[in-house]
């Protein structure tokens, strides 16, 4: 999005401290076809899966998704038609299940569907967007083919004479983020690595926040140092326990490795890869009446087992 437009959207935003609780369905209604959407978390960690799930169900089209590292969720977004382009530093099935065959199908047919940046390069795009500047200098990617294919501009620092690259800011239309806790105003507290979520929340025009648990505002005020994302960045708050499933939420539950493995192994074996993903989408995304019915497909045993492995604090 254009730098001035991106700022103007923030200028015009209502920044009142007000109740923003809503349903997953209504929150995702804020996202339009062809929007640019930044996805929180990293690889399997704190993926806002509930929002992605609802995006697919609402049959959104040709969205440009940004994610630091992309995993199986990229397969689902591609095959459903929700994703027109993946902007990421890495797109695979996961270390254990090898290169995503779905990514290969799409990106080998149309290389523009997978826009590659280095992880720091992509991070700096959000950082610049969050800081309200249109670009930022860096040493990363200098001299590589990534510099060339991204068409990055060189820059000589007038103070030091250093040769640098300039990374253009990105200001997505929407950032989608999942936190362990938040209050109804959208003050979000993330535990474990915040990944790029703080940067994307500030860079985006709108933020949809799902959270394991909505807590009282006084609880937030008891520990304000733990608030990573303040209410005025956030536009919708949805309480969504196990909202990253089958991915993980730090301190709460680990990834459902067996369930991811079923998908990963199934895809490896399937002859018709796209067909396999379509069936998976039908079963896990389109059929369930709601998110809890989706969780039922994984089952109580899986939820308890991943919780047992993942939990850190007495709850």
């Amino acid at each position, binding site marked *: 999005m254009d730098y001035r437009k991106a700022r103007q959207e*923030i*200028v015009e935003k209502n*920044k*009142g401290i*007000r109740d923003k609780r809503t349903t997953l369905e209504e929150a995702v209604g804020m996202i339009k076809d062809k929007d640019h959407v930044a996805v929180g978390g990293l690889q399997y960690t704190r993926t806002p899966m509930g929002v992605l799930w609802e995006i697919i169900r609402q049959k959104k089209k040709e969205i440009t998704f940004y994610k630091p590292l992309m995993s199986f969720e990229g397969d689902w977004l591609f095959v459903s038609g929700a994703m027109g382009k993946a902007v990421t530093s890495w797109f695979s099935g996961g270390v254990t299940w090898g290169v995503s065959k779905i990514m290969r199908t799409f990106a080998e047919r149309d290389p523009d569907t997978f826009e590659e940046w280095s992880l720091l390069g992509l991070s700096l795009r959000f950082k610049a967007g*969050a*800081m*309200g500047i249109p670009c930022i200098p860096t040493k990363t990617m200098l001299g590589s083919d990534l510099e060339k294919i991204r068409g990055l501009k060189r820059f000589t620092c007038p103070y030091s004479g250093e040769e640098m690259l300039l990374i253009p800011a990105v200001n997505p239309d929407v950032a989608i983020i999942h936190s362990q806790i938040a209050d109804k105003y959208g003050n979000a507290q993330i535990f474990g690595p915040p990944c790029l979520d703080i940067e994307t929340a500030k860079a985006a025009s709108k933020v949809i926040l799902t959270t394991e648990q909505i807590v009282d505002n006084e609880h937030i*005020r008891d520990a304000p140092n733990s608030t990573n994302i*303040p209410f005025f960045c956030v536009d919708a708050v949805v309480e969504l326990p196990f909202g990253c499933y089958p991915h993980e939420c730090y301190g709460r539950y680990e990834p459902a490795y067996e369930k991811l493995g079923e998908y990963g192994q199934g895809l490896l074996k399937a002859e018709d890869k796209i067909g396999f993903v379509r069936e998976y989408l039908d079963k896990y995304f389109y059929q369930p009446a709601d998110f809890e019915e989706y969780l039922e497909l994984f089952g109580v045993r899986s939820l308890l087992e991943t919780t047992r492995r993942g939990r850190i604090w007495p709850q």
Partner: protein
Amino acid sequence: MSNYNPAELTVIMGSRALQDGQLVFAGAGLPLLSAIHAQKMHAPSLSILFEVGGVAPRITSLPRSTNEARSVRRSVATPATIDMMLYLQRGFVDVGFLGGAQIDRHGNINSSCIGTLEKPKVRLPGSGGANDIASSANRVFIISYHEKRRFVEKVDFLTSPGFLEGGQAREKTGLMGGGVEKVITNLGILEFDKKTRSMTLTAVHPGITEDEVREKTGFELLVAEDLKTTTPPSDEELHSLRALDPEKRYLKAGDF
């Protein structure tokens, strides 16, 4: 004889200028009182931000400075100073309050020195975050005691930009914040002509004359054709305000 003093009057005018839902940078003293007063009167979802790192604190005891722990108590977040200041650059801060040793006809502010910086007559404390607020807040309200030595033709040093040389100068330099929207003084309200961006008296407070303002202004004062008179503070407004500063640390009679 009115039942309020100049400080009380000015704070209430500042409070009225604020809207519900806004994010406001308000330093200690009159600006902070304006913001808290607005929250109590008509803007319950307005939030206050402090440079040091406080978001929507609960102010139960007026701090001596907004950079102290006391001022950020019960905040919903305590970000780093740079992150607070970057909210300005990103467009999150709807209103910033400023004052200064000198203010010129185009709303430029000096808080750095009287005389030249090479040979200062008086070295002043400097910008703090004032330049950043003036550069990037979505709008700035100047709150000031109205006196000739303060409202000058040209500031000795341009610490914080208003409309620079006037006209489109501010936009041309690349600044994106809205600039000064209102100057709120103990005599009246001044705004800026759309074209020349020169300070224009648009309202006087009850009992104040145009001439009185002119006399206390160090440059040729423009006056709006439809010069208004502000509505005097209501009993409710005064009552609510006085409860915020029972020791009259800021709401003293006389100048401020």
